């Protein structure tokens, strides 16, 4: 088994804006190893989110490939790509994106629920609730499980989002500016949590425009003008 988990090659993505075409990615390549904590840096609007969405198979590139465990994601049938979204990666967004009608525990559970039919859920229910509870405890929200997102602070919401991303035990965690909306102190705590997870073996790809935040990663890449360049290696 190769040590390489994810490899993107020659990704192109452009958006049509009326008559003009914005070419956001112009041949981006990168690879991530198992257990690695990778940071992609770039200015706002440089295409970091676009790239991360492609890696998470939430969007399709104009050109290029993303291989996960040596399988080309965009060559897979749609149902297999959905399984990838659900099981192999966990996505953490800058704006948390929790479901407002559900409480913290249910927001974590929903990622589990999606793959279950009513029948199979009966069997998986207790284990799933236990797992979700454990994850909330791990992100430090044990006593907030019954709270709705509107009753939680930004940092707490992001913790719930991280717990949700992890509930299906994905091999890869994708984080899109996870601290972008938080103040320095809370952002630091979230980064601490991600570092901890990484130390426990979780592979993480994170994008950020903040060099301070990126410094927690093993390896940093720089995205600018639609292409990738090496931005430094592990300082540790």
């Amino acid at each position, binding site marked *: 088994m190769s040590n390489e988990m994810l490899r993107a090659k020659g990704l192109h993505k452009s958006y049509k804006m009326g008559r003009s075409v914005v070419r956001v990615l112009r041949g981006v390549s990168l690879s991530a190893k198992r257990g690695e904590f990778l940071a992609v840096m770039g200015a706002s609007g440089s295409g970091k989110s676009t790239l991360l969405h492609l890696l998470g198979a939430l969007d399709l590139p104009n050109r290029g490939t993303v291989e996960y465990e040596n399988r080309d994601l965009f060559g897979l049938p749609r149902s297999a790509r959905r399984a990838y*979204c659900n099981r192999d990666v966990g996505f953490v967004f800058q704006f948390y994106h929790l479901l407002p009608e559900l409480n913290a525990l249910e927001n974590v559970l929903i990622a589990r629920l999606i793959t279950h039919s009513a029948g199979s859920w009966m069997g998986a229910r207790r284990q799933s609730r236990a797992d979700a509870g454990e994850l909330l405890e791990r992100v430090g929200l044990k006593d907030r499980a019954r709270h709705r997102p509107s009753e939680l602070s930004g940092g707490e919401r992001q913790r719930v989002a991280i717990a949700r991303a992890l509930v299906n035990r994905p091999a890869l965690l994708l984080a899109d500016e996870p601290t972008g909306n938080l103040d320095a102190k809370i952002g630091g705590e979230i980064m601490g949590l991600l570092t901890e997870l990484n130390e426990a073996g979780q592979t993480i790809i994170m994008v950020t425009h903040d060099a301070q935040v990126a410094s927690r990663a093993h390896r940093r890449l720089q995205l600018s003008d639609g292409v990738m360049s090496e931005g430094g290696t592990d300082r540790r």
Partner: protein
Amino acid sequence: MYKWFLAWRYLHTKLIAFFGVASVMLCVAMVLVVMSVMGGFLDTVRERSRGMLSDVVLEAGSMQGFPYYEEFETYVAKHMSDIVAVTTPTIVNYGLIRVPDTSQTKPAQIVGVRLNEYCTINDFKGGLHYEEYFPGTTTLAKQPIAVAGLDPNTEKLSLPPELEAANRKWQESVGDPEEIEKYESLPYATSAFPKTAAPYYYDRVFAADIGEPKYEGPEHMGLIVGSDVLWDRDKQGGFKRYLARGTRLALTVLPLTPSGTLTGEPPVRIPLRYADDSRTGIFEIDSMCVYVDFDMLQQKLAMDAQEKIDGGFTKPRAKQLLIGLKEGVDLDEGWARVQAGWLNFLATLGPNVDDGDMTRLGFVDVYTWEDLQRPLIAAIEKEKVLVTILFGLISLVAIVLLGCIFYMIVEKKTKDIGILKSLGASGRGVAGLFVVYAAAIGVVGAALGTLLGSAFVWNINTIQDKLAQLNPALKVWSPDVYSFDKIPEVVKQQDAMWIAIVAVIASMVGSLIPAFLAARVWPVKALRYE
């Protein structure tokens, strides 16, 4: 699984679900009320129109009637006793009814019946008025007038012993002291004509005289009048009876020859005594029909056996032969058997049947009661269908409305849909979520609507009375228009079930387009911004 879970959550956390539920509920309640009331109306008419006839009816094609009905009765008793319980002939004719005391004259449809047989074959007895309070005393046979005795000291009235005994029988069968008290408190009126404006309700009217109760006057055959022939109704739907029981009435009829020409004799005037009044609940019948003894009417109309110039006798004739089927015999099957039996019977008659009789027999048809009441029932059936369609159309508006509500929900939930999709939910799954949500709204709305509609129908008379108290113009149901005392209050489970099912399906249909839009939401677009 998440579909059910989220649909459930949306259902009780989103205000907009309330609007969806409310609109389904109101539509279901509305259609249920309309169908129940119209259906109840229809059933009442059917039931009551059946009450006048029998299961199967042999009817002559013209007023002169048809011969050999007695022979057919014998034939039926002999060959068809497995399905036929009773048979009885009737004559239907037209004439004038006159009240000599008031010089009032009115047209009437005269029905000649054998009262005992007639009462076993249908519900006629249940609609008789005096028969209820004085069971066993209504007869079409010869009778004098009963005069109540008035004690000049106590001002108390007493009826002849037979009537008092009959009334006691009624009191025993009722058992309810309140009901009896109500009866006791009602006044006797000795003679209430010319019509007085007295405010009370003439429920029972007897002639009265100082002295002992007695029977008086020459005996005449009895006459039962349709309840709306002579009486007006008060606002509560009660009848303003103003003639004492036993009052003299007169019928005038025109006898016809078997071939349908006038006999040349002057019109026949028949003196009768008012024995009772009959209420079938069908205004068309109660405002026209009067009932007399079959054999007497047959004779007066010269429809009995008449001596012929060339010797021999004509055959007695009847207008209808009512045939009551045994319990459990299917109506259509019974009809087919009677029809076949009738043809068989005709074949046995042989060659000595008079030519004219043969023609009249050829015009006899076998009907079920439903066939005969078709014009009356069909009109109401059509009305029911029409009103249901109208309200169905209104419900169509509700479906569109639901579609709009779901569209708004999908719009507002675009981000959630993006989240679900980013977590691996399929387009079909998300669409399913909204259909399940719609179904949930449909189910809750239909359940509440069924409750609301049923409650409304069950209390519709109370509601209408309350409304009428507020403003008399709101009294839509008036017994003197609709011949029923009350608006029907029955909800049929089957109707309710179908309406509920259609409502649930309709809500799901209303959600299809928005669900389709939801399925097409592209996750990254939905998630790009906060």
